[in-house]
């Protein structure tokens, strides 16, 4: 019966060892015999289907996350994301009174915008794969450390990064302070090479004469030059339990990046006084950016069954963008195993200093930076959504969520000299998208 006694001793040490801080030369690091460990793996899977109105971006994004639990609060997590994008995206040019034709970045295929429409580049189809791994472990009764690596690849983009985080509990685990650092190196290899900022976009190529197939342009970044960018992030966090039913979290984030920030495929229209395009130039952004963000979040258990969650984030950077985000959700646990969760998010941002809806003839020689990327414009966004979740008797659970996201742009960055001429066009960036997500979580 010695084996039976050993099982008792091992189980007891696991109970006491898991609760007490590991000391020097401690006998409390005993690994239990495998038949006594409960399920060691946790899988969290999901899939997003994203669809913008007006034939714009469509994306399908499956995610797989697996966590392997070791004893004593140690865990290894690996995550894989595949992102397939299709559809059209604004190329930065402003609408005009006559049709506008552009050549795609690969030099093959053209697209045309109808009068009065903002041109949409539909030639991009992209698949991105991202992988990450993180390991977390306790360093004392109150401290936890984690480090991780991540990388991603698209046909014209490669990135690799590392991160580390330390958190420490005080006041009987009621207060937690944490510090996180991460670094990421990006390599951008635009198709056809990175264009010179503010240089002329060549006019669309004439259709090739019938005859032998011309040599295909390189589809990936091999033919062109590669640009790089480095991003360093720092996050300082404080979590405080307020009472047995609520807690609050504060984060300060600092992000500095330097290197190539331009979008190599985006252009600006250079217009005359009448607002019609004379030529197009590639955009130019600064080669450095510093962002500060302050975040506060409050979670409360209400009516003895539901959870209310609200957060606010304020961001400001040295490109002139300032934004506020309010995000709130209410989890209504209407029975033991199911819940409904309405979600509301409101977002507003100011335009970057160098955001221009279009440039006036000649400005392309005098401005340092200019971009018509709608993401840098001034706009407000609303998200409305509803999520349903269900937990099965096995302990596994699934969820489904349907959301609607609408961005409403503000007219900004219009050159004065062409203001009258551009009056007739809708320059403000607008966007609306439907997002559907499903998720499934299980242990093994």
């Amino acid at each position, binding site marked *: 019966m010695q084996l039976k006694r050993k099982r008792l001793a091992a189980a007891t040490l696991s109970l006491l060892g898991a609760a007490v801080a590991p000391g020097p030369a401690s006998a409390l690091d005993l690994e239990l015999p495998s038949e006594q460990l409960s399920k060691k793996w946790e899988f969290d899977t999901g899939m997003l289907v994203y669809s913008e109105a007006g034939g714009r971006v469509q994306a399908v994004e499956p995610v797989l996350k697996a966590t392997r639990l070791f004893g004593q609060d140690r865990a290894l997590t690996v995550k894989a994301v595949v992102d397939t994008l299709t559809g059209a995206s604004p190329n930065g040019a402003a609408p005009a009174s006559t049709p506008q034709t552009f050549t795609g970045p690969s030099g093959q295929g053209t697209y045309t915008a109808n009068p009065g429409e903002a041109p949409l580049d539909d030639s991009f189809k992209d698949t991105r794969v991202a992988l990450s791994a993180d390991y977390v472990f306790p360093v004392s009764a109150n401290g936890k450390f984690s480090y991780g690596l991540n990388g991603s690849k698209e046909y014209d983009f490669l990135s690799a990064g590392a991160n580390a985080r330390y958190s420490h509990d005080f006041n009987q685990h009621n207060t937690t302070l944490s510090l996180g650092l991460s670094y990421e190196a990006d390599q951008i290899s635009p198709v056809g090479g990175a264009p010179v900022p503010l240089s002329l976009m060549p006019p669309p190529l004439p259709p090739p004469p019938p005859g032998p197939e011309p040599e295909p342009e390189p589809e990936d970044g091999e033919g062109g030059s590669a640009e790089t960018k480095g991003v360093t992030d720092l996050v300082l966090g404080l979590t405080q*339990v307020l009472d047995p039913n609520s807690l609050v979290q504060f984060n300060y984030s600092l992000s500095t990046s330097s290197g190539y920030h331009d979008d190599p495929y985006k252009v600006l229209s250079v217009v005359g006084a009448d607002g019609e395009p004379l030529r197009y130039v590639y955009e130019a952004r600064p080669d450095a950016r510093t962002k500060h963000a302050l975040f506060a979040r409050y979670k409360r258990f209400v009516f003895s069954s539901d959870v209310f969650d609200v957060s606010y*984030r304020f961001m400001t950077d040295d490109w002139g963008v300032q934004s506020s985000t309010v995000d709130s959700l209410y989890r209504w646990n209407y029975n033991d195993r199911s819940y409904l969760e309405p979600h509301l998010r409101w977002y507003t941002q100011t335009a970057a200093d160098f955001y221009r809806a279009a440039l006036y003839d000649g400005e392309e020689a005098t401005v340092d930076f200019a971009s018509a990327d709608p*993401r840098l414009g001034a706009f407000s966004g609303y998200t409305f959504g509803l999520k349903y979740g269900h937990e099965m008797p096995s302990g596994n659970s699934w969820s489904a969520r349907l959301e609607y996201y609408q961005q409403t742009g503000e007219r900004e960055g219009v050159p004065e000299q062409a203001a009258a001429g551009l009056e007739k066009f809708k320059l403000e960036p607008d966007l609306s998208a439907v997002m559907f997500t499903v998720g499934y979580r299980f242990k093994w």
Partner: protein
Amino acid sequence: MTRLILLAVAVLALGGCADLGAKPWQRGTLARYDMQLDCDPVLAGLDDHIYFSKEASSGGRGFGGGGCGCN
């Protein structure tokens, strides 16, 4: 800028309250899965990626979104 200062003051004020919290035997509700700050991380990650691609902001909850070519 004022907003930054107000939030920073709120954080510092909170740090001084050492008797806020729950006693160890009162932590049952806080242990609930839906009371965790990282409840549903896969969904949070997907959301972060969407908003990072369509807006000029990032970060807040954790590290700023990275690992994608969307500036």
